[in-house]
């Protein structure tokens, strides 16, 4: 059982005429999975989430949850809980009243006794590691604490699906990391479906079972994180996720899963061909951490000159001006204990990689 989106379309009337925020989204989200939707702002990820939550109505398409069509079911009766970017805690209520809100609405009246509500509120504040704040007001809490209260408020009604709209966007980096682990733990503990919207690809890679990369209202690729990272099917996905080099060229030939790309300087780069590649205009994609800097010579596939070198802690980043191409290649190399071994700015270097680390892509 699962949540199925098919053919979802949603347009908004904006200052420049009608714009399709969501333009035919099909997604099957298996029950209990942690699915992220990522993309740059305006790609339709938040609108898709709001369509699932029932906060927007689609122009066409359908949403089916556990075999039940919910496309036009009011938000209040969908049983899906949403976490908002600004937490959306009710400022005039205490933390306890906030958490209990979903249990006290008319639709739930009579189902829980006052004592039971008390118990559930305490239980869920404990679950999010926030005991003893029941009687405080939201404005007395830190951002991370508010986040946890919002989570408890959503969880207390026992929804099957939790929707997250960039919930960690307002937190600082350290707290973000901690909350990512926390969400991962809760997901494993509760076994609920998490649908998570973020513009942060690293966050999505870290916490998701599956990622949908969206662009201009469509899903470009929907796959597990490692597949998104290592086997992107389009140039856009490759560029959006991770630090990537794209070398444009023409398809010079193919042999089964292998393809050869002739670059503008005549060099032929071989790599794995992405599924359904038709074009002659293609790109060879190589991750920055898959390229080795070697001495110039026959063993190097390309050669060039180091234009920039940045120390980034876990690794050095090199910008290499490649001979005969008007692009710089980005190369990540783990930091050597003795930094003088790594080539400095201005040094001539060769570039080498393994064929299986190259993907041949089109748009």
């Amino acid at each position, binding site marked *: 059982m699962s949540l199925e989106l098919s053919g979802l379309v949603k347009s908004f009337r904006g200052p420049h005429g009608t714009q399709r925020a969501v333009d035919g989204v099909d997604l099957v989200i298996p029950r209990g999975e942690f699915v992220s939707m990522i993309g740059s702002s305006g790609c339709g990820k938040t609108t898709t989430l709001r369509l699932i*939550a*029932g*906060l927007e109505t689609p122009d066409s398409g359908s949403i089916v949850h556990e075999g039940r069509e919910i496309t036009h079911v*009011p*938000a*209040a*009766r969908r049983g*899906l*809980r*949403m976490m*908002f*970017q*600004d937490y*959306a805690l*009710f*400022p*005039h209520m205490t933390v306890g009243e906030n958490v209990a*809100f*979903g249990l006290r*609405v*008319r*639709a*739930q009246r009579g189902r829980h006794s006052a004592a039971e509500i008390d118990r559930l509120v305490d239980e869920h504040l404990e679950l999010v590691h926030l005991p003893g704040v029941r009687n405080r*007001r939201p*404005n007395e809490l830190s951002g991370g604490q508010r986040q946890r209260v919002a989570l408890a*408020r*959503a969880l207390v*009604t026992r929804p099957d699906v939790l929707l997250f709209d960039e919930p960690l966007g307002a937190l600082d980096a350290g707290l973000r990391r901690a909350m990512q682990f926390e969400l991962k733990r809760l997901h494993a503990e509760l076994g609920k479906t998490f649908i998570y919207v973020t513009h942060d690809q690293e966050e999505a890679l870290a916490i998701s079972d599956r990622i949908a990369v969206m662009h201009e209202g469509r899903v470009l690729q929907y796959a597990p994180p490692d597949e998104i990272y290592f086997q992107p099917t389009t140039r856009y996905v490759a560029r959006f996720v991770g630090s990537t080099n794209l070398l444009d060229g023409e398809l010079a030939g193919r042999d089964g899963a292998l393809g050869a790309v002739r670059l503008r300087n005549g060099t032929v780069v071989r790599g794995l061909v992405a599924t359904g590649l038709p074009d002659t205009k293609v790109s060879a994609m190589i991750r920055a951490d898959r390229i080795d800097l070697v001495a110039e010579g026959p063993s190097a596939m390309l050669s060039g000159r180091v234009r920039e070198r940045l120390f980034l802690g876990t690794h050095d980043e090199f910008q290499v001006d490649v001979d005969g191409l008007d692009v710089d290649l980005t190369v990540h190399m783990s930091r050597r204990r003795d930094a003088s071994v790594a080539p400095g700015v201005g040094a001539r270097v060769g570039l080498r990689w393994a064929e299986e680390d190259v993907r041949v892509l089109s748009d």
Partner: protein
Amino acid sequence: MSAEALAPIPDVRREARNAERRRLLLWLGPPAAWFAVFMLLPHLSLLYVSLGHMDYVDFVPGFSAANYVKIFTVEPYLGVTFKSFNNGLMTAVLASLIAYPLALWMAFGVSSARARALVSVLVILPWLASYMVKAYAWKTILGTQGVVNSLLVSAGVVAEPLETLMYSRFAVILTLTYIFTPFCVISIYAQLERIPPSLIEAARNLGATDLEILRRIVLPISIPGVFAGAVIVFSLAFSDFITSTLVGGPSDLMISSIMINLFGVSMDRPLASAIGFLMLALAAVLLVTMQWVEKRVQVRF
């Protein structure tokens, strides 16, 4: 280092402090002077006059509470004050009741920003018309030859034009409500606008119906705006005299009208001053109380 060497330092500090003080005085001087000349002095002179009495046409200064005693013991002063108070209260309540749904619609029912701006202008627009014109407008609507009566007579609901529509307490409160409601709308709208849309979406997402959202989220957060608007309207309506003179009957005089008569016709300036001072004191007490209440119910995000 010797103690003598350290000695000048406190002087430098004091100098800096004095400079700071002079600068503050420079900035605060003009508003403070304005306040003293145009607010404090007139009110003090009002108090001063109210403690004296008249000897035929001459004012005799004194230090007697006789005028205040008179207000509380001799009719019609206290009765009319109460009536005016009631009119003010009624106007404030009616204006709030009318304004709330309107402000609610402006904040949540009007989706495009342009439409919202247009509605805001429409709410404020009557304020560009003269007060007198607006009061007179109700005369033409409610009068015996007015729009309402003509309609009622031609529809056969009543045989004769209704006299009670015009020159009555009903007409006074209706007109006051019409004139002052925009204050309430603006005050309530300002509060509603502060409510982030995500709060309402979150409540809906948690299963609340529209009515529950209104009662449990929107109303508690916007109630300070209702109070603030009601206080402004009350103060204005309580002290109003033009409307009661234009559309009210002989028995609908408000306390301000009486005060004006005492000043202009009866030449009893001390008694008029006493009434004025009491009204000011009443308004001040009300404002301070409401401010306290508002602070208690104000929601901090």
